[in-house]
C-alpha cells in the first residue's frame, strides 16, 4: 500500500480544503506546537476506523468554518486517502455534513464511508469497511505510532501470531496443525477398531496401548508444567520489568539511606561527646579561679608599690637616724628587695640548679651571682631569727606589710596550678567548639542527603520509599524464581524428548504388532499420519523460528544504520505468552540490557518496525507505509539528522509529523531550519497557524500548509 494523497476538509484546524501529495519514500510534515501535527495524525486515524465508532463527532468540525456559517448553511467534514494497493488505485473517504441551525446550534448528518476503486475510467464505489481487506485493524497497529511509547508493537496481544500469519515464510500453519490432530484421532480410532479383532496379540496390544497412554499422559503433564513454568518465568520477568525502571532509584535510595544513617550516628556521637556543664566545673573543678591570675597581678602590683614605699620610708628613716648600715644601703641607689623575696624555696632551687630564675642567666657555684643568691638566702634565714638593725628602733613596729607580701609570694607559687586550670578550660571549650563545628558539617551533609532522597522519590512515578525498598528486596528473589523456572523448563524439555522417543517407539511397536493381520494397514496408516502430524508440528515451529530470526537479522541491520556512532547492542526477539512478543537489547556478553535510554529504545523498536516492513515487501505481501507522530522527541539534533538521513534512503513510504527542523528565529519566532531540511531527501510540508489569530478564540485558528520540497 502506497498512500498517494491525503485530503482534509474542515477537519478541526484544517479549514476548508487541504491536500497533501505524498511520495512513496520519506514524507515530513513539520509544524510547531498547536500547528496541527497531531490533528493530521488523528484525521488518518479517524479515517481508518472501520468499526463504526466516532462517526460524526462535532469536535471534529473546524471551529472557524462552523462559526462563519450562516443559519441553515452547511458544509462537510471530509478526510480522504488515495492509495495504490496491489496495482489498483483506491480512495478511502469518510465524511459527514454539518449544518448551522437558526439558533446557532451545529447539527450533523449524511455520514458516508466509502472505498472507491478506480479501474481505468470505471469507478466502483464500495463500503469503506472493506478497507479492512487492504489493511486489517490488527495490521494498523504495525503502521501508526503516536509518540515514542507506541512503538513497542510486539507487546500487543497476538502480535506475534499476526506477524507469523502475515510475514512468515508459510502462512495458515495453524489450520493444518489443527487438521492433523483431527486426522490423527480418526486414524487411531480406525486402527483401534481393527485391532479389536486381533485376539492373538490382544495382550501385547493392550500393553502397548497402556504404554502409549502413559507416555501421552506424561507428555501432557510435562507440556502443562512447561506451560506453567513458562508462565511463571514470564510473570517474574514481567515483575522484574515493571520494577526495572525503579531498580536504579532503589539502589540510589538505599545508598542515600545508608549515608543518612551513617551521618545521623556520627551526629549523635559528636553531640554525646560535647560537655558543656560549665556551671558544674566552675565550682567542682575550681574554674572559678580562672580569673585568679589577674587578681594576683593586681595584688602584686599594689603590694609592691606599698612595699616600695615602706622601704623607702624606712631607709629614709635610717639615713636620718645616721646608721651607717642604713647609709650604705641608701647609697646603693636602689631599694633592695625584702629578705623573703623571692622566697626560701625558690632561692634554694636556684642555688641547686645554679641558675637565676629571674634573669635566666647561669649562676655557677662559687660565682658572684651564686654567692649573691646564697647571701640573700642566708639573709632571709637570719631575718627569720631576728632584726638585723638592732639598736635602732624600727620605723614600723609591726610586720603587716611583710605578711601581706609573703602572701603574694605564696599566691605566685600557686599561679602554676591556676595556669593549668586555665589551659584545661581553654582546651575544653576548644574541644566543644570543634565538636559543634563537626555537628554543623554533619548536619549540612544530612541536609544534602535528604534533598537527594527527595529528588529520587520525586522521579519514581509516585512510588513510595517503602515500595522502592521492597522492589529492591524483591529483585534477587524474583530473579532466583525466574531462573529456577527456566532451569526447570530446560529439564522438562529434555524429559519431553525422552518421552516422545518412548511414545514413538511404542507407536511403532503397536503398528508392527498388527503386521500380517487385517489391522496392519490401519495401524500403518495411523502411524504415517502420526509421523506426518509431527512433521507439520515441527515445520510450524521452524517457520516461527525462521521468522523471528529473519526479523532479528533485519532489525540489527537497521539498528546498525540508525545508530552509527553510538552503542547499539544486539536486538533479540522472543515469543511470549498470549501471542505477545518482546524485542530487547543484549550486550555482547549475552546479558540483557534492562534500562536503555529512550532514544536507544526508540531506535531499536523502529529498527524492528522497519525490519517487519522490509520483510513484508520482500515476501511480496502488502507493502506497508509507516506513519509516525513525533517519534524522535528524545533524540538530539545530531541523532535526529542521522535518523532522518537513514529513513530517507529506505525504500519505504514513511510519513512523519514532527516539530524537528524548526528553530528559534532572531525575534523569538519559530522558523524552518532550511539548511537541515535541504539535506533531507524526501517530500516536506510545513504546517502553521494562519496569522494573525486570537489566542483566546479557537474559531480563529486555521492550519495552513505549504509544500517546501
Amino acid at each position, binding site marked *: 500500500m502506497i498512500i498517494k494523497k491525503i485530503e482534509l476538509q474542515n477537519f478541526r484546524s484544517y479549514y476548508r480544503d487541504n491536500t497533501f501529495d505524498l511520495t512513496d519514500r520519506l514524507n515530513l510534515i513539520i509544524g510547531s506546537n498547536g500547528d496541527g501535527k497531531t490533528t493530521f495524525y488523528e484525521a488518518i486515524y479517524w479515517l481508518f476506523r472501520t468499526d463504526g465508532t466516532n462517526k460524526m463527532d462535532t469536535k471534529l468540525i473546524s471551529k472557524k468554518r462552523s462559526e462563519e456559517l450562516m443559519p441553515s448553511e452547511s458544509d462537510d467534514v471530509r478526510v480522504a486517502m488515495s492509495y495504490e494497493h496491489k496495482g489498483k488505485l483506491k480512495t478511502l473517504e469518510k465524511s459527514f455534513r454539518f449544518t448551522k441551525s437558526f439558533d446557532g446550534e451545529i447539527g450533523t448528518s449524511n455520514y458516508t464511508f466509502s472505498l472507491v476503486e478506480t479501474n481505468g475510467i470505471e469507478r466502483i464505489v464500495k463500503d469503506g469497511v472493506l478497507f479492512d481487506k487492504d489493511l486489517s485493524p490488527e495490521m494498523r497497529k504495525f503502521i501508526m505510532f503516536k509518540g515514542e511509547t507506541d512503538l513497542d508493537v510486539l507487546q500487543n496481544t497476538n502480535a506475534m501470531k499476526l506477524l507469523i500469519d502475515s510475514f512468515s515464510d508459510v502462512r495458515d500453519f495453524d*489450520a*493444518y496443525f*489443527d487438521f492433523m490432530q483431527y486426522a490423527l484421532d480418526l486414524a487411531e480410532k480406525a486402527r483401534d477398531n481393527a485391532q479389536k479383532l486381533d485376539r492373538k496379540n490382544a495382550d501385547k496390544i493392550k500393553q502397548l496401548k497402556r504404554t502409549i497412554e502413559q507416555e501421552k499422559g506424561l507428555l501432557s503433564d510435562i507440556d502443562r508444567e512447561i506451560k506453567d513454568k513458562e508462565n511463571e518465568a514470564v510473570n517474574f520477568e514481567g515483575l522484574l520489568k515493571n520494577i526495572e525502571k525503579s531498580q536504579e532509584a532503589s539502589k540510589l535510595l538505599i545508598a542515600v539511606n545508608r549515608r543518612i544513617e551513617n551521618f545521623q550516628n556520627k551526629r549523635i556521637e559528636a553531640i554525646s561527646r560535647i560537655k558543656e556543664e560549665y556551671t558544674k566545673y566552675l565550682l567542682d573543678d575550681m574554674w572559678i579561679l580562672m580569673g585568679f591570675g589577674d587578681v594576683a597581678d593586681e595584688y602584686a602590683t599594689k603590694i609592691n608599690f606599698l612595699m616600695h614605699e615602706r622601704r623607702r620610708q624606712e631607709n629614709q628613716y635610717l639615713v636620718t637616724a645616721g646608721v651607717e648600715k642604713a647609709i650604705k644601703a641608701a647609697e646603693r641607689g636602689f631599694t633592695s628587695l625584702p629578705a623573703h623575696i623571692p622566697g626560701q624555696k625558690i632561692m634554694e632551687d636556684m642555688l641547686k640548679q645554679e641558675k637565676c630564675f629571674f634573669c635566666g642567666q647561669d649562676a655557677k657555684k662559687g660565682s658572684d651571682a651564686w654567692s649573691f643568691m646564697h647571701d640573700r638566702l642566708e639573709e632571709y634565714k637570719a631575718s627569720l631569727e631576728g632584726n638585723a638593725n638592732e639598736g635602732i628602733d624600727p620605723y614600723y613596729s609591726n610586720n603587716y606589710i611583710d605578711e601581706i607580701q609573703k602572701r603574694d609570694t605564696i599566691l605566685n607559687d600557686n599561679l602554676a596550678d591556676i595556669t593549668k586550670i586555665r589551659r584545661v578550660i581553654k582546651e575544653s571549650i576548644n574541644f566543644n567548639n570543634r565538636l559543634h563545628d563537626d555537628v554543623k558539617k554533619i548536619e549540612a551533609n544530612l541536609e544534602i542527603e535528604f534533598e537527594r532522597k527527595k529528588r529520587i522519590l520525586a522521579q519514581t512515578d509516585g512510588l513510595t520509599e517503602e515500595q522502592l525498598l521492597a522492589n529492591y528486596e524483591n529483585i534477587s528473589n524474583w530473579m532466583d524464581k525466574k531462573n529456577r523456572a527456566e532451569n526447570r523448563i530446560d529439564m522438562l524439555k529434555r524429559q519431553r524428548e525422552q518421552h516422545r522417543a518412548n511414545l514413538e517407539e511404542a507407536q511403532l511397536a503397536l503398528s508392527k504388532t498388527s503386521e500380517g493381520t487385517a489391522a496392519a494397514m490401519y495401524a*500403518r*496408516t495411523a502411524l504415517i499420519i502420526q*509421523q506426518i502430524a509431527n*512433521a*507439520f508440528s515441527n*515445520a510450524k515451529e521452524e517457520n516461527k523460528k525462521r521468522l523471528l530470526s529473519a526479523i532479528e537479522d533485519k532489525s540489527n541491520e537497521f539498528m546498525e544504520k540508525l545508530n552509527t556512532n553510538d552503542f547499539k547492542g544486539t536486538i533479540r526477539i522472543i515469543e511470549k505468552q498470549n501471542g505477545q512478543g518482546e524485542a530487547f537489547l543484549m550486550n555482547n556478553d549475552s546479558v540483557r540490557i534492562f534500562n536503555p535510554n529512550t532514544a536507544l529504545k526508540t531506535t531499536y523498536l523502529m529498527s524492528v518496525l522497519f525490519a517487519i516492513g522490509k520483510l513484508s515487501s520482500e515476501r511480496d505481501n502488502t507493502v506497508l507505509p509507516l506513519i509516525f507522530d513525533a517519534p524522535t522527541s528524545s533524540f538530539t539534533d545530531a541523532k535526529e539528522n542521522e535518523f532522518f538521513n537513514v529513513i530517507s534512503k529506505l525504500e519505504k513510504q514513511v510519513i512523519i509529523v514532527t516539530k524537528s527542523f524548526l528553530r528559534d528565529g532572531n525575534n523569538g519566532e519559530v522558523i524552518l531550519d532550511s539548511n537541515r531540511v535541504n539535506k533531507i531527501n524526501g517530500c516536506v510540508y510545513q504546517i502553521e497557524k494562519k496569522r494573525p489569530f486570537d489566542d483566546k478564540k479557537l474559531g480563529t485558528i486555521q492550519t495552513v500548509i505549504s509544500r517546501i520540497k
Partner: protein
Amino acid sequence: MTNKERMLHMVLDDKKLQELYDYDKSEYEDLYTAMNSDNVVVAAVARIIKYLDGSTDVGDQKKTYMTVFNYINDNYML
C-alpha cells in the same frame, strides 16, 4: 513460489520423515510433482496441503482426511 509450495518444502524438510520414508525433498519443487510422487508419504503430505487449502471447516477436514486415509491405505505397500 506459492504458500502451499513453501509449506510443502518445510514439512518435507523434516529430518525424521526423510529418514523414515527415504525421499529427496529437492525432487519436489511444486505441489503437482509431490502429488504424483511414488512416495506415498510425500504424496499424502501434498494432498493434505492441497485439499485442506488452509480451511478450518470441519467438513473440509473430514473430506481431506478421507482422501488422505484412503490414499495411504490404497497405496502404501507393507
